[in-house]
């Protein structure tokens, strides 16, 4: 490889998840040989996004405005607040459910060994919001991992302190799963969290 620019482009592309040296090289050649225009578009979009996307002051989701569209709009239910670990989780809930409430994004979970404590997750800000009196239910949607569960416990206490009812996503046997193939931890969890059958 003689071109310095080319090798630095390939190197840069490797920062993407799932992209190794081979794929990076293929991408670079593809853009240069066949798609320069869209390559430039990509460069512009990348620069704009990296420089201008910050966090919404209210929910901490990604946003280029001080308040994101969800927080700024008035159409969603202000009594419901759903806490997620990451913007990816938020997107997943938006796509899979008909949820019409608001969100709060932690950008992590309580993890002392990763240097993540209450401050890093913006929990003082969350506590303040819960104390404002508008939220009635805090839906805790942290991951069912050890750290996610510990975080959920912490959040539930915050909610109760603010007079808000905390709820937790149910977890258990995956749809279409067979008990025989479910791992022990999940099965124990599902068994412990069993529900009465009288719901229609």
């Amino acid at each position, binding site marked *: 490889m003689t071109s310095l620019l080319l090798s630095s482009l390939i190197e840069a592309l490797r920062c993407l*998840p*799932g992209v*190794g040296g081979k794929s990076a090289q293929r991408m670079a050649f593809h853009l240069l040989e066949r798609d320069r225009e869209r390559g430039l578009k990509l460069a512009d979009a990348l620069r704009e996004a990296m420089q201008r996307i910050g966090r919404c002051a209210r929910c901490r989701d990604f946003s280029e405005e001080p308040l994101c569209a969800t927080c700024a709009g008035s159409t969603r239910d202000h009594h419901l607040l759903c806490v997620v670990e990451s913007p990816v989780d938020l997107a997943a809930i938006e796509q899979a459910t008909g949820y019409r409430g608001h969100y709060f994004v932690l950008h992590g979970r*309580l*993890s*002392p*060994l*990763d*240097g*993540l*404590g*209450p*401050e890093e997750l913006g*929990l003082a800000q969350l506590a303040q919001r819960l104390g404002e009196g508008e939220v009635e239910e805090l839906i805790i949607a942290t991951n069912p*991992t*050890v*750290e996610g*569960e*510990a975080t959920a*416990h*912490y959040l539930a*206490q915050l909610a109760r302190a603010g007079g808000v009812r905390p709820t937790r996503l149910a977890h258990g046997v995956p749809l279409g799963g067979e008990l025989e193939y479910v*791992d*022990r*931890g*999940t099965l*124990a*969890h599902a068994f*412990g969290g069993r529900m009465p059958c009288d719901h229609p």
Partner: protein
Amino acid sequence: MRLDQQPAYVLHARPYRETSLLLECLTRDHGRLGVVARGVRGERARLRRAQLEPFQALALDLLLRGELATLAGAEVVGMPLRLAGEHGLAGLYLNELVVRLTARQDAQPVLFDAYARTLARLAASEPVAWTLRRFERDLLEAIGYGLQLRQEADGDGLLQAQAHYRYDVEQGALRCTAGAPHAVRGADLLALADDRMPDRTGMAALRQLMREVIRYHLGGGELRAWRVLAGVQPQR
């Protein structure tokens, strides 16, 4: 070196390279080990990933070469422990304590047993603060920084239950007056030595004492988990 069916717990996991995890494990015969677990991220690896959560007794097959070990196999031992609520937060504290105070590849069978015992106590919802004090005592003992809880530091007298002491990390229990800062009753030090839970005042004094000692061994640093635990109210 190949280790088969090594009893172990995962203390912490973080993403490593594309699809791997770098696990920090406490093993029975080789102390704390950094272990690379390949191909355990992503949807298809969910089952294998779930096994490698903290607080689960595991038997690991490992290839130990240089600084890091590679995971060749993992098997869950026994029933999964459920550390609910503040007991889970206490478990995270435990893990930070072990990672921060022990060196990698420093064999600690005594510490391993103390750790397993502590997890069982947390899972059985025993009182969190006392469970943590007992573990801190055993951890310090195991890594060679054991507290002097029966002898007075100056002179060779036995600790007096009625006397008050200030615990100096290097010297031990020094007599002081009742109202002195960091004063702890002799009875409370003896209770910790004898594995009896002291009263409320004693528990508060021991908590303070342990923080000072741990801070000293961290070279003046803080544990992140202290701030997490500070924010939760004990249950009941």
